[in-house]
């Protein structure tokens, strides 16, 4: 389905991520002075180990693994929010939007202002945003809450809004971090289905982190299985999911 010559949009090379954590964190001056001579051993947490990954334009890429296996950290590495350890390289070559449960908005300002900010950062000129504004609101089914501050929105409303922005503001890469949980009614699910099916036509790329293996099986071309930060395998959904079940059984 994917041509060999399609563009690589996400490229991770030798990515390791280590967090240096102290037993206790002293973040105020008082704490730092009081505890200056107390031992505070350093601990290293290896969140990701030697990840090499290329995601091509138009792919629907899944990431699965147990809680704490490093899925979210990997997404943060992709967005550039976390830099990888030395010698590692992380590149993302197109406009992305990370979608996670109801985050990504300034809660104090209205939906309208948030739409303008997000769409503008994704590169749309003001005039274009104004033209697409109604479409964004309609898709998110928020006609009655255009000027309501986001802090009064339910999680479902926020999810619909951010998804709608990502779709209409032409983000090229969707990074979905546990985005679709139990929220959204049938009508909205239908809409997202439609969008997902058409992503391949429009050449958008989706990276989906999920515990919902059915969704993964349904949509993804390739799936990465992470286990304590180690990439166990990358393959078609079925074998990876099988391996995942095996790992779970071994551990229990």
């Amino acid at each position: 389905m994917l041509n060999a010559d399609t563009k690589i949009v996400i490229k991770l090379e030798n990515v390791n991520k280590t967090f240096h954590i102290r037993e206790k964190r002293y973040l105020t001056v008082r704490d730092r002075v009081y505890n200056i001579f107390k031992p505070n051993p350093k601990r290293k947490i290896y969140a990701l180990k030697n990840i090499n990954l290329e995601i091509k334009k138009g792919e629907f890429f899944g990431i699965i693994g147990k809680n704490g296996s490093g899925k979210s950290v990997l997404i943060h590495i992709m967005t550039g929010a976390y830099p990888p350890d030395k010698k590692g390289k992380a590149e993302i070559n197109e406009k992305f939007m990370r979608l996670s449960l109801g985050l990504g908005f300034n809660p104090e300002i209205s939906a309208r202002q948030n739409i303008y900010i997000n769409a503008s950062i994704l590169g749309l000129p003001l005039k274009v945003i104004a033209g697409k504004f109604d479409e964004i609101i309609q898709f998110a089914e928020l006609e009655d809450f255009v000027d309501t501050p986001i802090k009064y929105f339910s999680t479902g409303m926020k999810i619909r809004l951010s998804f709608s922005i990502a779709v209409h503001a032409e983000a090229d890469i969707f990074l979905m971090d546990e985005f679709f949980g139990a929220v959204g009614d049938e009508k909205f699910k239908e809409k997202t289905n439609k969008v997902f099916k058409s992503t391949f036509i429009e050449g958008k790329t989706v990276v989906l982190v999920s515990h919902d293996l059915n969704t993964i099986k349904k949509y993804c071309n390739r799936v990465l299985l992470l286990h304590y930060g180690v990439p166990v395998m990358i393959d078609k959904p079925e074998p990876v999911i099988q391996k995942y079940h095996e790992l779970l059984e071994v551990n229990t």
Partner: protein
Amino acid sequence: MAQILKKTYNLFFNNNRLQRIWILAKTDFKQRYYGSSLGLLWALINPLCQLVIYYSVFTLIFQGSVPNFALYIFSGLILWMFFTEATKKGIHVLNSKRYLLENIPINKFDIYLSSGISAFLGVLFNILIFFIVSIFFDIKYSYNLLFLPLILINLFIFVLSVTFFLSTIYIYIRDLDHIWDILLLAGLWTIPIIWDQAFVINKLQFLLYLHPLTGILINIREILLYDTFPDLFILFYDFVYSLLLFFTGLFFVNKFSHKALEMV
């Protein structure tokens, strides 16, 4: 050479970057004032109240000999209030804009820039009021006014660099707010904003310049109050250290700012 110029041009133009920075700044500004019942009036009430307080204290207690003492204070307060507001907001900028930094491809520099601009809108507003008020005083303006934008840019660069440092230090020291409040208080009383510069004896005048904002303040007064040509040496000196701070600050932001996102 032409290519380099074109590249720098493309950094800000040929795309919607300026719009983006402006939208962020505008929303910040609105959020600050429109949420309250008096709205934008607060931007006016606050400096006027401060002015009245300082003016009455210093004319009642000290027999000042500064002409147009009210405007003398006001010109300094414009600068100082901008410095306070921008830095206090700047301390938290990596946290308050986390919702963007984590989710969407935005340049960190744009975040700082927009946060600075939103505070700078207050300066423009205050300068406008200054001009209106100065009609009632005996003040003349001439071509010297052309230097004002240059000095304001200088001030802006300096303030921006301070926020670079503060926001990165804040990652490691969470009570920086309180420390900074004290430093600001010390800063206000060691610069001739609310007291007469002539209080300091001639031999010790150079001490005034230990305060990083004194040079900018004096030049702003030369222009706004006395209609004289600004001191070019001071102007040059201010620009040099502001730019030095700016680039070291930028370096710190690049090196440490990601920790603000990692340390939840």
